[in-house]
């Protein structure tokens, strides 16, 4: 029987099948953070249950933390309470916590891979929809709700219906100035914000193979924006090379054995998918979004389209009104006062290097505030070791401390009402970056170019 990569991993994790079509799926790694875990801990306590497998949980504080002065106590009382609750819960239950001040603290989907915790063939969950990021390593990784966080804490398992399979193939060579963020925004513009619902996506093709692990993570990260349960990419030499030597990666002979196993993780020739799409890399340009969901994106040289059947007219009109854009507008030349480079989508060392390389010798436009928020303490440290902080400083870009920051505006990092922000994050929903804030999603290069010119620009004209 020919199988997809997804089915191979899923079937290896079925503990039992339940009448009514659900599987009991075993979870190999469970990441938790301060926002979606407190009610799960309380739930367990109420039931008088212990955590079933403590060594399979890793905790960090990211969503709610300040990105300035992290050595000081958190000033915002509710955030402080939530972060402290996580500390207490981890202490009480004997869980590993990379909290504020820890050398490994950072955005949960950045630290998992960089510490070598994320590995091919695993099942990984977290109370966060962008858990799909970890799929870049050939694992089944997906976001869950707090009730499910409690279930995994209690039993290391979930009761799930197996999703359908989708394959998205991208072949060919990318144009200069086009990044993996543009690939996923392009796919989203074609498939819409609901095009992946009910499916688990495998990304394949020569373009995907040519991407670094960081770039692959950006693509898998935004699978959820199509409504997909998750996205994954078959592991290859790049994957093994990335994992090798990392803190929690298997070492020596065990690593070699692991690689032997990881090499069996691919989709068999002729395995069936429920849906298949194919795109050509050369058709992809730098992308920007114009609306209030990530599927409302255009190539930078295109103008805002009329609504089609995929977007309801009411939603379309509401979105354009919120963004203060009109049908037929081009975004080129639009003045933007805020630039956010960060989030679990684009805050890794490679993203920071790309931005630094572009802005070296340039400086930001006077009207623009630029925040660069590294994905983790390790990314921050490496950026400083490589001297990127000096380049940012010279350009007037503010390098902050790690956290989710202005991606969702839970901490103080908010975009003011009515202001536009070009953002390397993953969601342009109404109010996502602050009440009334207007988000334009783009790649780190497009964001850097906008920071330098003070208005939206096609980065290719500056390369």
């Amino acid at each position, binding site marked *: 029987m020919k199988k997809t990569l997804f089915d191979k991993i899923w079937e290896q994790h079925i503990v039992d099948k339940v009448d*009514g079509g659900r599987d009991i799926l075993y979870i190999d790694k469970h990441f938790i953070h301060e926002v979606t875990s407190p009610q799960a801990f309380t739930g367990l306590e109420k039931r008088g249950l212990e955590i079933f497998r403590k060594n399979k949980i890793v905790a960090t504080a990211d969503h709610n933390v300040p990105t300035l002065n992290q050595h000081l106590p958190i000033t915002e009382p509710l955030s402080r309470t*939530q972060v402290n609750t996580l500390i207490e819960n981890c202490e009480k239950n004997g869980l590993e916590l990379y909290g504020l001040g820890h050398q490994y603290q950072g955005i949960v989907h950045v630290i998992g891979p960089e510490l070598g915790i994320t590995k091919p063939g695993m099942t990984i969950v977290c109370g966060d929809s962008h858990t799909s990021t970890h799929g870049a390593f050939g694992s089944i990784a997906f976001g869950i709700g707090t009730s499910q966080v409690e279930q995994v804490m209690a039993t290391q398992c979930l009761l799930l219906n197996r999703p359908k399979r989708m394959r998205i193939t991208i072949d060919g060579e990318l144009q200069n100035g086009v990044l993996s963020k543009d690939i996923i925004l392009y796919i989203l513009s074609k498939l819409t914000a609901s095009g992946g619902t009910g499916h688990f996506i495998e990304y394949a093709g020569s373009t995907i193979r040519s991407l670094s692990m960081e770039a692959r993570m950006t693509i898998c990260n935004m699978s959820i924006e199509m409504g997909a349960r998750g996205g994954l990419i078959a592991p290859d030499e790049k994957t093994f090379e990335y994992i090798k030597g990392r803190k929690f990666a298997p070492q020596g002979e065990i690593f070699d054995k692991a690689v032997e196993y990881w090499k069996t993780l691919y989709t068999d020739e002729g395995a069936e998918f429920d849906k298949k799409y194919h795109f050509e890399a050369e058709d992809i340009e730098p992308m920007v979004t114009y609306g209030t*969901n990530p599927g409302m994106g255009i190539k930078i040289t295109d103008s805002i389209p009329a609504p089609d059947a995929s977007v309801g007219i009411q939603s379309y009109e509401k979105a354009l009104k919120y963004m203060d854009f009109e049908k037929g507008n081009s975004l080129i030349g639009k003045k933007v006062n805020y630039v956010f480079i960060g989030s679990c989508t684009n805050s890794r060392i490679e993203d920071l290097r790309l931005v630094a390389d572009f802005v070296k010798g340039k400086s930001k436009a006077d009207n623009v505030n630029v925040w660069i928020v590294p994905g983790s303490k390790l990314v921050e440290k490496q950026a400083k070791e490589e001297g990127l902080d000096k380049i940012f400083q010279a350009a007037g870009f503010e390098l902050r401390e790690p956290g989710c920051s202005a991606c969702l505006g839970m901490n103080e990092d908010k975009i003011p009402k009515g202001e536009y922000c070009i953002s390397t994050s993953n969601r342009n929903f109404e109010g996502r970056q602050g009440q009334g804030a207007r988000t334009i999603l783009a790649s780190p290069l497009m964001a850097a170019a906008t920071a330098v010119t003070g208005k939206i620009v096609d980065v290719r004209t500056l390369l």
Partner: protein
Amino acid sequence: MEKFETLITTAIPLPMEDVDTDQIIPARFLKATTREGFGDNLFRDWRFEQNNVTKKEFVLNNPIYEGKILVAGKNFGCGSSREHAAWALFDYGFRVVVSSFFADIFKGNALNNGLLPITVSPEFLHELFSCVEKNPQTELIVDLEAQRIAILDNGKHEHFEIDSYKKMCLLNGYDDIDYLLSKKDKIEAFEKTQVIF
């Protein structure tokens, strides 16, 4: 979890598509460490201006509409996995959300909290919107046992799908942990067979 019982109630129409969970409950309200009280901030920024003045045009602020069923456009609950969205809807008083399809994570979260997501055909959704908007007193009946949603006035109805396990859970007020705990032996046996790197 509360048992789900047959419901006869009016409904509130929200004919907007791709309603994301950031709208249902904005991130700044996720700082609580308990499950209670999220209803106050349900659709906060659609219900209120920044200065807390009520936005009269939003349907939840329109006194002619009330009821325990929210009827919404397709892809309801997309975006963030925050279960707070399901808690907020339930806490506000909703027991059913009807749409032509739901985002996966939201649907799972709703089912885990006794909030029934009913997927209907686009045609029946259209029928619901037009009946409720024409006559806000229109009552709907939701019979989970029979997997049937009907419009009382005109008798139009549709069968809906739900897997038999989740149906049993909702009807009895069981949740997944109860079931998973009963399988501990199998889980432990499974762990012994696993090769981990």
